[in-house]
């Protein structure tokens, strides 16, 4: 036999199995026999038969071995469960704190995860979502280039017609306020939409009745949602019914959709064919390449298409059709468009913030769990010693401790689920979402709960499992309780408490800063009088009767002024490119914000003039050839004073600058005050502004309503207060602040529970010491200080850590999100520090006072 015969060794895996299952001596003696038979068989029957035989040998051992082991381990498991149960029950207080704080932590984590999941799932339910892209325009007239989803109406059809890579395209415009009439029912609907038939083909809509394939082909067809149908038609079949829109056009219902999910940009009440938009504003837009409004365009691209390549191809289509434009066209994946906005905004900020919040809450809860488990387990070292003496192997002890921790974390997870379920309605109110907790369908949530429970169990159980189980039984049983609670473990515990409190303090400071910024926004002087200013969205009726309505209104002493504008002051402005002015250098880009206003705008809103005069009824050129600019615009124009009478051009409108007004916040406080000019151009005017007296508001409003309904009887009257409307602009910050506040409270609560538990543990451990101290003449006050001191130091260290961290974090938040923001006062830190300190002291003092009040005789007898 030569050596090459031994090239094929017995297969590895069965050899490994045999080695694992047999004890070492048996393996050494017997595997040789197996090998010999293997080699013999290989020679006679080939290597395959031999390997097969070897495999069979290894598998033949398994049943007996497993049976034995299962039986034995089931006995042990029963024992472990029993011990774990007893431990939980014996120290009810500890277990309660332990489990409840973890349950609260897990529940808040779950709620936040639900929110995050809802945000991430935004518009992901469309079957073709992967291949849908949004068309974006890049305006290269400004620096840096600005991006928007607004496109002109002919673009989408042109893309489909000219580029074979683009399989389909659709236009969409949503969020329009439309007057709807059916029989006696007459309502303003806030969420009307315009869309092409192709929209129904590209995106996924669930039709309850009607045909998806031709629902929006007829120009006077309308597709409604289930809720909308219920509102107007009760139980009748809506298909075929005729609705009147805008008091002008009749539409026949061709389909009813299942209510679209709330986390979708297509959460409209009804949709009518896109061409109706032209009809609504009385302008033929079908081939107008220069008219941008809130029109969105979507394209469907072939699965293998590369959108970047297609973007490059279609880039110039806008400029080719519109000489004045410097807009480049591109595509952006539809799926990402919600999370990642165009100019660096987007829901992703909220998602990250809240995920971090969830993580923090969970960390705090886990730390409690760890701290209390380790604190408790050091008292169990005698049990460990005894188990070891009785023959428990180290692995068994590790398993036991891990198992116990896991049992508790699963109980907590279960409680958290119930808690979450109970809190969900409140939470939905708070977050303005419609979240559901459906474990059976929400696999990700289910897995993450299980995963978190297991992870928490492992982390919390790992210290007692690995550290304590490695002790030598002799040492454990010999030494006394006090010296046994190792230095390293109490150091670890202290560090964890510091982490916990640092996070809590950071959360306190953060929520205070958010709150302060909201206050700042509310009280910020925008430069004009936003109080007692009503605005009415102008419908065709008001536009028609504007002058007579205005004159009637001014007859009432409660009405101080009436005017109109193209955009809501303090919220947004229109913008215009292609501008020119006297002495404009070539390298300055001619692009500015603009707002068309009524003649009395400046007195109605209360703007101060630095130079020149407001628009005047007497001067006819003011109606079409006059401009008023703000201070920032003055800087941009780089004109020498006096600027009045200098010439200025906007599009085809040539005229003179007649005045300069002080800077006011024409947009939200998120952004800078941009260069802005005002001009009179009634076509753009969309909002009627009414300044009223602060006294007797309700009767004034009744009067205003009366006038509108008499002079404009076809439309219901609808108004808003400007200051309230401006506040809604900051709703997302407000919601952030609210949610942040509640989760901060929860996080602090959990930390306190933990501290309470730890304090009672310390008090218990030092019962004898306290007894001796008291017997030797120490006062109760001294004892309280003794126990509180330890925790006080920890809270102070936490403050030192938390202050700079939260300062950096919140400064960044303010800088990133608001051009105009509050400063972070030093007193916020002091308040947060004192708050944390007080809370910590309160939770500790209960235990320490109880310990201090105890009769030394009882505590000395304590064993």
């Amino acid at each position, binding site marked *: *036999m030569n*050596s090459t015969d*031994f090239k094929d*060794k*017995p297969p590895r895996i069965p050899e490994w199995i045999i080695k694992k299952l047999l004890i070492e001596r048996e393996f*050494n*003696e*017997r*595997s*040789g*026999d*197996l*090998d*010999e*038979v*293997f*080699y*013999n068989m290989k020679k006679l029957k080939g290597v395959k038969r031999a390997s097969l035989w070897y495999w069979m*040998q290894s598998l*033949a*051992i398994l049943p007996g071995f497993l049976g034995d082991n299962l039986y034995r381990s089931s006995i042990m498991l029963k024992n472990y469960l029993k011990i774990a149960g007893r431990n939980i029950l014996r120290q009810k207080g500890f277990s309660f704190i332990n489990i409840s704080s973890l349950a609260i932590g897990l529940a808040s984590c779950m709620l936040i995860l639900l929110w995050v999941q809802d945000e991430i799932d935004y518009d992901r339910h469309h079957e073709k979502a992967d291949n849908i892209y949004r068309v974006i325009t890049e305006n290269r007239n400004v620096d840096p280039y600005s991006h928007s989803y607004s496109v002109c109406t002919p673009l989408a059809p042109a893309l489909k017609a000219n580029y074979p890579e683009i399989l389909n395209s659709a236009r969409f415009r949503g969020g329009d306020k439309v007057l709807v009439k059916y029989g006696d029912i007459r309502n303003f609907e806030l969420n009307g939409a315009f869309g092409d038939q192709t929209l129904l083909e590209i995106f996924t809509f669930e039709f309850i009745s009607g045909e998806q394939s031709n629902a929006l082909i007829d120009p006077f067809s309308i597709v409604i949602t289930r809720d909308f149908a219920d509102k107007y038609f009760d139980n009748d079949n809506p298909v075929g019914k005729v609705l009147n829109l805008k008091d002008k056009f009749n539409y026949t219902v061709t389909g009813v959709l299942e209510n679209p999910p709330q986390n979708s940009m297509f959460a409209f009440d009804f949709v009518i064919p896109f061409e109706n938009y032209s009809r609504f504003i009385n302008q033929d837009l079908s081939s107008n390449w220069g008219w941008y409004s809130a029109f969105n365009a979507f394209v469907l691209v072939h699965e293998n298409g590369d959108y970047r390549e297609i973007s490059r191809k279609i880039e110039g289509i806008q400029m080719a059709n519109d000489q004045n434009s410097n807009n480049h066209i591109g595509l952006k994946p539809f799926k990402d468009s919600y999370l990642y906005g165009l100019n660096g905004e987007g829901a992703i900020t909220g998602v990250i913030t809240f995920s971090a919040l969830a993580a923090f809450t969970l960390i705090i809860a886990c730390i409690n769990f760890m701290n209390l488990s380790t604190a408790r387990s050091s008292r169990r070292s005698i049990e460990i010693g005894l188990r070891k003496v009785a023959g428990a192997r180290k692995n068994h002890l590790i398993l036991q401790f891990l198992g116990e921790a896991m049992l508790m974390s699963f109980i907590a997870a279960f409680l958290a689920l119930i808690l979450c379920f109970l809190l969900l309605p409140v939470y939905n109110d708070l977050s303005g979402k419609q979240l559901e907790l459906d474990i059976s369908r929400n696999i990700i949530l289910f897995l993450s709960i299980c995963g978190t429970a297991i992870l928490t169990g492992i982390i919390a159980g790992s210290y007692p499992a690995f550290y304590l189980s490695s002790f030598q039984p002799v040492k454990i049983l010999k030494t006394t309780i006090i010296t046994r609670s190792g230095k390293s473990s109490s150091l670890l515990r202290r560090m964890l408490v510091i982490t916990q409190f640092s996070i809590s303090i950071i959360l306190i400071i953060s929520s205070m800063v958010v709150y302060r910024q909201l206050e700042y926004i509310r009280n910020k002087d925008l430069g004009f009088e936003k109080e007692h200013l009503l605005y009415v969205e102008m419908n065709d009726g008001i536009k028609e009767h504007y002058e007579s309505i205005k004159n009637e209104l001014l007859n009432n002493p409660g009405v101080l002024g009436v005017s109109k504008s193209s955009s809501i002051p303090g919220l947004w402005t229109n913008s215009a490119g292609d501008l020119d002015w006297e002495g404009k250098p070539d390298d300055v880009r001619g692009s500015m914000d603009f707002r068309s206003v009524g003649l009395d705008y400046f007195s109605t809103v209360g703007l101060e003039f630095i130079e020149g005069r407001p628009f005047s009824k007497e001067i006819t050129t003011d109606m079409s050839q006059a401009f008023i600019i703000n201070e920032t615009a003055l800087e941009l124009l780089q004109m020498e004073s006096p600027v009045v009478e200098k010439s200025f051009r906007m599009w085809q409108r040539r005229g003179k600058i007649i005045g300069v007004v002080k800077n006011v916040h024409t947009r939200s406080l998120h952004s800078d005050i941009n260069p802005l000019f005002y001009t009179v151009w009634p076509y753009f005017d969309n909002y009627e502004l009414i300044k009223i007296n602060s006294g007797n508001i309700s009767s004034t409003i009744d009067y205003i309503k009366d006038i509108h309904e008499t002079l404009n009887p076809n439309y219901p009257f609808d108004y808003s207060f400007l200051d309230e409307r401006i506040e809604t602009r900051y709703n997302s910050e407000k919601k952030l602040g609210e949610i942040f506040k509640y989760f901060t409270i929860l996080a602090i609560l959990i930390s306190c529970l933990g501290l309470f538990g730890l304090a009672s543990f310390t008090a218990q451990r030092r019962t004898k010491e306290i007894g001796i101290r008291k017997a030797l003449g120490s006062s109760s006050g001294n004892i309280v200080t003794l126990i509180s001191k330890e925790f006080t130091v920890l809270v102070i260290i936490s403050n030192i850590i938390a202050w700079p961290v939260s300062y950096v974090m919140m400064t960044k938040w303010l800088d990133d999100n608001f051009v105009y923001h509050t400063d972070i006062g030093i007193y916020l830190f002091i308040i947060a520090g004192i708050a944390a300190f007080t809370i910590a002291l309160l939770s500790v003092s209960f235990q320490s006072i109880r310990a201090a009040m105890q009769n030394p005789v009882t505590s000395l007898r304590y064993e």
Partner: protein
Amino acid sequence: MNLLSRSEEIMLLTILKLKENAYGVSIREQIRIDSGKTWSFASIYQPLDKLTKKDFVRKLKGEPTPERGGKRKYYYEITQEGRNALLEIKKANESFWSGIPEIAGK
């Protein structure tokens, strides 16, 4: 004293028959030759373990050989007690069998 079991008896007999060359594989092979049946290793080791415990056989270490994947052979050798036990079971067997007429029948 208990009598040897059937499998222990077979082990001892096979070990005697194989003289110096009695180890796992050869014992299994010899049993196959004598009885025509292949025993699993487990059914060989089990009686061998028992016999070792009762000191009826002794284990001897051999040298590692390449045909065993570089592992040692463990030879089995019968002890005096083993021989006595074997003699005893032989005597018992003879008296059990004596006086039995024809088994196969007519």
